[in-house]
């Protein structure tokens, strides 16, 4: 495993982790932009723009773009979050340079009016689809409620009305501000030639002009509000709780991720034994969501409407118990084993490795090998997790529930 890095004169950073023993390679363009970088008038533009990049350039139409990816057997896609837009592909080594060049070309899209109008329909369908997916919807709504006035509460998808009102010109202006070379990282992992990779990216991206790019990086302790929405289409109660967490840059992030497993892993956690094993809730989990300069834990619970008071009693009892007694050495050992084994399995695939490689650079500006992350996880002590519990005060959270209307 060998790490390489290069910065072009316009600020574009290229990083690579070369592993000649893999049968594939993965490449990603990581753009530091997402819904938190939007104003209310253009909410949803980051995600819509991600779709528009697939519509091609002045030289390439949308159908040609799709064909160009498929001709090389690429498994490719993109995603947009509150703060990142990531374009990625995994391919056999012989196609890596072609696909890298294609992505680089697409990073300077045409943003044609007719494509924009047609894709609006698809975006609105995507919004409708997630409205019918309560497991997603409730977490999204709870994050928005938790962050209140803070931009990390902005919806990634936006609303149908907002998307209807959005213009292609607004999108072009947003694109010009955010897709600057100094606001992006190009990462590659797996079996590939570093020199040729750099030459390919440089030829396409070397003349892009840098911009002044900023982001509001305040932290926010959360509103701790509580809301419920009834929907006639639902028969279960979907409850999301959001706690204040720590940021992606915070050294306590390893302790935070272990804590989330102790409390809410799918199997063997406190939620599992207190709620799921006893069939009081059918699903109960906790995840750590580190962000740029801020962070949250989100908890998801699914049960009958009638069971909610009992479930919440148990959950708040678990939080009180953690605050009073902390976690045990045995719990930490188990959580550590789970994280380590997940880390090993995920990083055996170039695509799994690409995500950690890219995000470590985006958030920390540093390369971290799998071994370094393994050591950091192994080094976490019970007392660090217990200190974190006291500092964060898990007894205070924001709550959003989706459930049946008749309730």
């Amino acid at each position, binding site marked *: 495993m060998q790490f390489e890095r290069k910065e072009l004169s316009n600020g574009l950073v290229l990083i690579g982790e070369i592993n000649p023993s893999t049968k594939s390679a993965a490449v990603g363009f990581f753009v530091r932009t997402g819904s938190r970088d939007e104003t209310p008038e253009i909410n949803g533009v980051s995600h819509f723009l991600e779709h528009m990049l697939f519509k091609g350039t002045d030289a390439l139409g949308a159908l040609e773009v799709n*064909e160009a990816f498929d001709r090389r057997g690429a498994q490719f896609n993109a995603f947009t979050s509150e703060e990142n837009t990531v374009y990625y592909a995994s391919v056999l080594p012989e196609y890596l340079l072609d696909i890298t060049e294609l992505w680089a070309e697409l990073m300077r899209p045409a943003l044609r009016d007719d494509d924009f109008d047609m894709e609006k329909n698809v975006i609105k*369908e995507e919004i409708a689809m997630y409205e019918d997916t309560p497991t997603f919807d409730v977490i999204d709504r709870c994050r928005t409620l938790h962050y209140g006035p803070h931009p990390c509460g902005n919806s990634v998808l936006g609303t149908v009305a907002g998307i209807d009102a959005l213009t292609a010109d607004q999108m072009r202006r947003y694109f010009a501000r955010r897709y600057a070379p100094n606001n992006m990282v190009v990462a590659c992992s797996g079996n590939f030639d570093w020199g040729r990779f750099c030459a390919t990216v440089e030829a396409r991206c070397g003349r892009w002009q840098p911009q002044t790019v900023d982001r509001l990086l305040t932290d926010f302790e959360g509103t701790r509000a509580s809301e419920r929405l009834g929907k006639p289409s639902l028969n279960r109660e979907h409850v999301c709780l959001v706690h204040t967490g720590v940021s992606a840059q915070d050294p306590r992030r390893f302790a935070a991720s272990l804590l989330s497993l102790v409390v809410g892993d799918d199997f063997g956690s406190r939620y599992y034994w207190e709620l799921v094993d006893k069939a009081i809730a059918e699903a109960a989990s906790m995840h750590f969501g580190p962000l740029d300069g801020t962070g949250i834990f989100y908890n998801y619970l699914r049960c009958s409407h009638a069971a909610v008071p009992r479930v919440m009693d148990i959950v708040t009892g678990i939080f009180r118990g953690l605050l009073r007694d902390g976690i045990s050495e045995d719990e930490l050992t188990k959580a550590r084993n789970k994280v380590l084994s997940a880390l090993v399995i995920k990083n*055996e695939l170039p695509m799994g490795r690409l995500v950690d490689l890219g995000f470590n650079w985006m958030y920390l500006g540093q390369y971290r090998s799998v071994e370094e992350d393994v050591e950091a996880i192994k080094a976490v002590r019970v007392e660090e997790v217990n200190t974190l519990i006291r500092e964060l005060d898990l007894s205070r959270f924001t709550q959003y529930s989706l459930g049946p209307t008749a309730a």
Partner: protein
Amino acid sequence: MEQKADRYVLNNGMVLLGEPMGGVESVAFEFMLPAGAARMPEGACGAANVISDWIFRGAGDRDNRQLGDALDGLGLQRSDSVGSSHLSFGAALESSNLAEALTLHADAILRAHLRDEEFMPARQLALEGVLALDDEPRQKVMVELRKRFYPAPLGRSTVGEIEDLERLSPDRTREVAKSCFDIGRTIFAVAGKYDFDAVCGQMESLFGDCPGPGSEALDIGTREGRYTHIPNEGSQVHIGVMTDAVPFTGEDYYDIRLATSVLSGGMSARLFTEVREKRGLCYAIGARYHSLKDAAGIMCYAGTTPEKAQETLDVIVAEFRRLAEGIGDEELDRAKVGLKSSLIMQSESSGSRAGAIGSDHYMLGRVRSLEEITERIDGTTVDSIVEALKRRPFNDFTVVTIGPREVRVE
């Protein structure tokens, strides 16, 4: 990279398969017991889901909590599932913990306590799983589609039926578990970093004393109606469409796989192009080949707002039918490279290899090498695919919709 296949059969018929992989520290394993949804007795749909939970609530000399803690300490990424034919228990983990994980699984499979007081929560979780599916129409529509497309009991719900689950008693469920946990017809697959001699030795001592195989016979009934609408006041109409195709074991299998890729293999494939790119009807649209041992189909999902539902269905059906009119050379080339690339990339994951070799053995009685699959993919031509499509045209479609509006099905 040379591909190696390990195989060993215990005296009672249990098949052990392995595929060693270089350069990985992980190992994945899967037990495939012939206890899938279609194997449940009439009136016990969902029993497999209860059993898969119940057997881990205490086994051997460990109670529920002790067994849970022991499994939990191994850092397993568990992947248990109920399919039509099999109930599968699997996991990926660091290879040094494999022997211990197998011992614990053998306890659960052979020496589960199945105590009355642990039955109620196991059944309750299965029931709640069925209720939760109502809130996920995207998944529910495909469960309902398979139920109506495949002749009973092959398409039975893999989550279970409320009425059946409510009628299950501990005694009845114990009986079902006893008759379905047929070790002589169980397939065990392992892939990644492992020592096959050690695995065989351990499996022999864990499972070697179990009796030989029981009967595989299954009474196949008839297929249910062509169109079903399930009303739901959600935002979209969720559309499931399925049509007959040659099964995995059939002569035309590779031709139909390639035809499915032309239809929906990548973003340049026909469904994505016609439904999403040109008409903006859907966000989620896709079709895939789905095969049981003796029956198969191509299943398609689309989600769209009510006013676009009819046009979406019409375009989908037209695209299925248009395939037999001809396929372009470039389209086929893209389909081939897409299938081959995904095959090679999946072969880097121990979990997907363990699943693939187990399923190959069940379907074909042998494991195909990547080389064989690649050759067969390369061997298809536009003519061979069109001929295969004409031999078995897409005439009949089973359709299920969930949402605020019905569609017309011709």
